[in-house]
């Protein structure tokens, strides 16, 4: 189910004093099975961009094609699209409302009009995906869980729709390192095993470096670059000029290269850097 954006523009409150263009002329094609990370500074239009992908926002210019169908054509079934393209908002735990975790997760499937058995099966599967024990948590109130657990419940609520494309808007914001690793591990698993297309909005270049197959770099509402992490992170200057930076390892690599260390210019994970440095050291000290 490829998603194609054709010069999409979105202007908020057009024609009033509050007018602001959030994204301008963005063209992008997302293929099945990709893991895309949308990166950009605060206010670069990342969130606006992803809200277009399931029809929550209508572009003020341009087109969005899902499976070749115009999402905003009159008569397009946006509710069906929203089932296929799941969107997890920033701080999704603030949207929980039901008395029990199970009921909250069942909200989405219920809106799809599924049978009780199917709903129950989906709730169990979704909870397993986010590593929450059904017997332990299903009947508890979501409001008495910890922040990280609440977020997992909220993500499970979207997963229970069993979308083909999963969009996550800063899923790790405000979590401690352990909570962050949990969520990222979960997302990676969904992508690797479930074959779900994942689109993740993120601030953290280090998270992105480990997970994404492709980066989409946004700056001031425009798409400035797209490519594999390797292609993007070698452009240290470009990334720093738009206030983003690169993973720590890529930065260290760039600094070492400036000092004349003969490293390749496209290293961006700590492991790669370590291996290259060790290889260099061994070359210099043959024993």
């Amino acid at each position, binding site marked *: 189910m490829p998603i194609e954006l054709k010069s999409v523009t979105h202007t908020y409150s057009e024609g009033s*004093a509050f007018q602001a263009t959030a994204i301008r002329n963005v063209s992008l094609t997302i293929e099945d099975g990709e893991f895309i990370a949308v990166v950009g500074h605060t206010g670069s239009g990342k969130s606006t961009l992803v809200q277009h992908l399931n029809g929550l926002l209508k572009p003020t210019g341009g087109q969005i094609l899902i499976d070749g169908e115009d999402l905003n054509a009159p008569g397009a079934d946006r509710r069906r699209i929203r*089932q296929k393209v799941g*969107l997890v908002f920033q701080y*999704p735990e603030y949207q929980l409302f039901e008395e029990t975790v199970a009921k909250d997760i069942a*909200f*989405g499937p219920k*809106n799809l009009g599924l049978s009780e058995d199917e709903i129950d099966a989906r709730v169990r599967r979704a909870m397993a995906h986010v590593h929450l024990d059904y017997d332990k948590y299903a009947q508890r109130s979501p*409001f008495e869980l910890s922040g990280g657990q609440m977020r997992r419940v909220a993500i499970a609520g979207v997963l229970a729709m069993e979308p083909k494309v999963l969009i996550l808007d800063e899923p790790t914001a405000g979590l401690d390192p352990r909570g962050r690793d949990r969520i990222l591990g979960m997302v990676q698993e969904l992508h690797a095993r479930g074959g779900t297309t994942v689109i993740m909005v993120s601030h953290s270049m280090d998270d992105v470096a480990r997970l994404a197959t492709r980066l989409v770099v946004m700056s001031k509402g425009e798409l400035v670059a797209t490519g594999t992490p390797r292609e993007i992170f070698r452009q240290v200057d470009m990334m720093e000029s738009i206030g983003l930076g690169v993973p720590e390892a890529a930065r260290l690599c760039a600094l070492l290269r400036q000092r004349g260390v003969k490293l390749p210019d496209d290293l961006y994970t700590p492991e790669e850097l370590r291996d290259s440095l060790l290889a260099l050291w061994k070359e210099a000290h043959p024993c």
Partner: protein
Amino acid sequence: MLKNITMGQYYPVDSLVHRLDPRIKILLTIAFIVAVFMVHSLVGYAIMLGFVYLTSRLARVPFKMLMRGLKPLRFILVLTFLLNLFFSGSGEPVFQLWFITVTAQGLSQAVHYSLRLMFLVVGTSLLTLTTSPIMLSDGIELLLSPLKRFHFPAHELGMMMSIALRFIPTLLEETDKIQKAQMARGADFESGNLMQRAKAMVPLLVPLFVSAFRRAGDLAMAMEARCYHGGENRTRLRVLKIQRNDLLACATMAGLILLIVAEGLLL
């Protein structure tokens, strides 16, 4: 969809009306409300409309935006009109069908009440559109401060108002976000009968209340951390002073009221 709510929203441009002293603007709004109640003919309403239009031009607020403030009230407006039309007034019926009776008095009352309601909303929207929330609550606090002598909590009231006003846009934004999040989970807020629609609000209202309480707690803590202890001995960043334009505005309002009175006596 929530962006259409104009009531209580500030329109940030610079204009003569925006720069008026908030105290004067509040008093003038009250005077305007009084004037609305003094109008007894359609000519009077036309004069009021002209005044509102000119003020909105002067304030550089689009007239359309001002009128959009009436949209959320359309239900109340229609209800007011119909109730007065059918159930008030006595005398000769002008129109009769089965159990429905419309009298001339009822008709004029219906027109009056709904026009009054519209002007009340538009007049107060003019105040809030041209006065930033901070200025507004400053103005109210200062206007009420003479009552402090009778242990009236003017400062506390002003503070409560500015906090409430401050959170309107935040809560609207939050509502928009939660609504979208639930729509992403297949929620439907736009179709179904009244009962179904009311039920569809639960997934919206529960998170909204939870977050409102959380925000209130956070704000209280932030205020205490900065040693807030009421208004005693507090000085102000902006000291308000009555200027020439304020007096001019007062004179204009006096002129409007005179015009309305004269129109009532002559016509």
